[in-house]
């Protein structure tokens, strides 16, 4: 009997650090994952509301950007308010790389190209920005937003200036046109096709980030977050890892931007404001700082919330809806106020976000019915 071959044990048992670092965890986790993959594949067959599909599409795009931000802010501990700038870079890069009047590259190439472009710009800015720490860094990255907006408005040949630019990219992969998908004799709408494209990429990026953080570079990043000087002392090359995290984070932001442009088929400088950056930070706060799962859940919650608020706003007293109504607070104000309130409440009462809530629920049921 081979001693290396471990006998089957209970799914919760771990016999070393390697087990803790497993990508797919226990049997139950594998089942859960399988269910998610099935949901991903089947959802467009059942969900035909173009409204909710478009909400999900936007949420998926946000999830990719949030994964990038979480890598920088959650795992490496560097505050960045400049995420929207890189989202914008990606969108304009997609217009240039994938547009019919420009390079007209196929889907994988313009997506990858936009991401690489974002990462390169991030790597160029990173060394300077990351000399600064904490509060200084937050405000310098805030400057990035304003300088970026100025560039987007004034580099008319590339960005179309204030009137924005069409992002008329192709979305074909191996004979599948996500814009007008025909599969198994069925025709699928634009929103359904993009759901598969976007959420497929969410899965891919999540896998990439998860792998990154559970290996050596990931541990180095977390060491930088927890105590940068100590990390340096034990041999983590601070500059290299910080800039690396900044570059990967910017690259993922640009990827999200490219998808945003391609989905919306149009972008203008008005979209890449400070508010967008704050939205991304809110996503990772609500979802869970420093977790892959949290970035995605946060994007879903904050993406779906306005739709839900709008749907039920008529039954909330004091909220004005429609053009003729008057009430204490309008839907817009309610949205913004709830958004602010979520940030404050989560940071004060549950700084680790929904991911921590989920862990607690899981832990409760693990020992159920003998939970304390």
């Amino acid at each position: 009997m081979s001693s290396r071959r471990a006998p089957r044990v209970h799914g919760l048992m771990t016999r070393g650090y390697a087990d803790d670092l497993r990508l797919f965890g226990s049997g139950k986790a594998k089942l859960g994952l399988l269910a998610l993959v099935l949901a991903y594949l089947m959802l467009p067959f059942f969900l035909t509301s173009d409204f909710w599909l478009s909400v999900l599409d936007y949420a998926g795009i946000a999830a990719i950007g949030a994964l990038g931000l979480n890598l920088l802010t959650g795992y490496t501990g560097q505050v960045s308010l400049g995420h929207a700038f890189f989202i914008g870079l990606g969108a304009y890069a997609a217009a240039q790389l994938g547009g019919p009047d420009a390079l007209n590259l196929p889907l994988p190439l313009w997506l990858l190209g936009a991401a690489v472009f974002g990462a390169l710009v991030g790597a160029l800015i990173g060394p300077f920005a990351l000399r600064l720490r904490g509060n200084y860094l937050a405000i310098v990255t805030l400057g990035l937003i304003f300088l970026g907006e100025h560039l987007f408005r004034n580099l008319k040949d590339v960005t179309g200036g204030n009137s924005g630019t069409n992002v008329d990219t192709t979305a074909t992969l191996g004979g599948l046109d996500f814009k007008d998908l025909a599969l198994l004799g069925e025709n699928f709408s634009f929103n359904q096709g993009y759901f598969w494209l976007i959420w497929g990429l969410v899965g891919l990026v999540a896998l990439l980030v998860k792998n990154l953080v559970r290996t050596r570079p990931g541990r180095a990043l977390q060491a930088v977050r927890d105590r940068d000087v100590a990390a340096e002392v034990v041999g983590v090359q601070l500059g290299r890892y910080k800039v690396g995290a900044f570059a990967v984070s910017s690259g993922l932001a640009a990827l999200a931007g490219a998808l945003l442009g391609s989905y919306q088929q149009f972008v203008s400088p008005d979209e890449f404001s400070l508010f967008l950056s704050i939205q991304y930070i809110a996503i990772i706060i609500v979802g869970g700082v420093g977790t892959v799962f949290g970035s995605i859940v946060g994007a879903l919650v904050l993406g779906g919330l306005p739709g839900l608020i709008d749907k039920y706003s008529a039954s909330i007293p004091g909220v004005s809806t429609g053009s003729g109504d008057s009430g204490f607070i309008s839907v817009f104000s309610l949205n913004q106020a709830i958004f602010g309130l979520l940030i404050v409440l989560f940071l004060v009462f549950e700084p680790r976000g929904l991911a921590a809530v989920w862990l607690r629920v899981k832990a409760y049921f693990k020992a159920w019915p003998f939970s304390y």
Partner: protein
Amino acid sequence: MSEFLQLCFNGTALGARYALVALGFVIIYRATGVINFAQGGLLALGAYLAYALNDTAALPFALAVIGAVIASGLIGAATERVVLRRMVGQPVFAVVMVTIGMLFILEQTITSIWGFEALNLGDPWGVQIVRAGDVVLAQRDLWTVGIAGAVLAAFFAFFRFSKLGVAMRATAFDQEAALAQGISARRVFAVSWGISGALACLAGVTLAAGPAALSPGIGAVALIAFPAMIVGGLDSPVGAVLGGLIIGITQALTTGYQEDLFGWAGANFAAVMPYVVMVLILLVRPYGLFGTREVRRI
């Protein structure tokens, strides 16, 4: 020459407002190590409170402003007591985001009560002007510079000579040592936020003076006061005032001469000029002009 003087005066008036906001940032930062992104919201709220006291409660303008300043100070202190005190010991990122969340709540409170339409603050300065040679001085700008100057002088005197001011400086210097001397850090925190709220209100009033100039958007000025604060150094009150003036005057000169000197940079370059100045200064001095170099321990 008169044009240059005119631009400098405009820049000084603008810079005085930035200085008031930036000083508010610095006071809070020195005491608690927090950058308060909600300052813009406090500023707008202060201006609206002055409007409400003047317009709705029919107080004379000066009294309305004083009332609003006191109310804003209390609101500032209350914010610290209710929200920020829970955040002691949390990472920078979390605290910054809490203040951003508060900014959203403040903004929506304002628009829910007073709406989005521009209002008249009811100040006595209106559009009256004083001429000095070729230079046109708006009364409202003269008052702004005057008020800012007086407040800053009073503040520095308070910091230097009053017991509480000395306690605040001691706490900023070494919190534990100050505690050992019997200084209540809590009180210092609350007072810092109170002073900062009062300064924000004054900045708001000077910004909202003039015809139809009071609107929820005035809080955005805080975004330009950030570079002012960074240029001066995060923890230096003198730096904040100087930084405000530098940014204000640079901005005014940029708008004035841009067409002739550097039209290639794109129209409205003055809007991003503060950030360019900030980046340039940080390249040379990573802690601003007067900021204290951080000493880090393992």
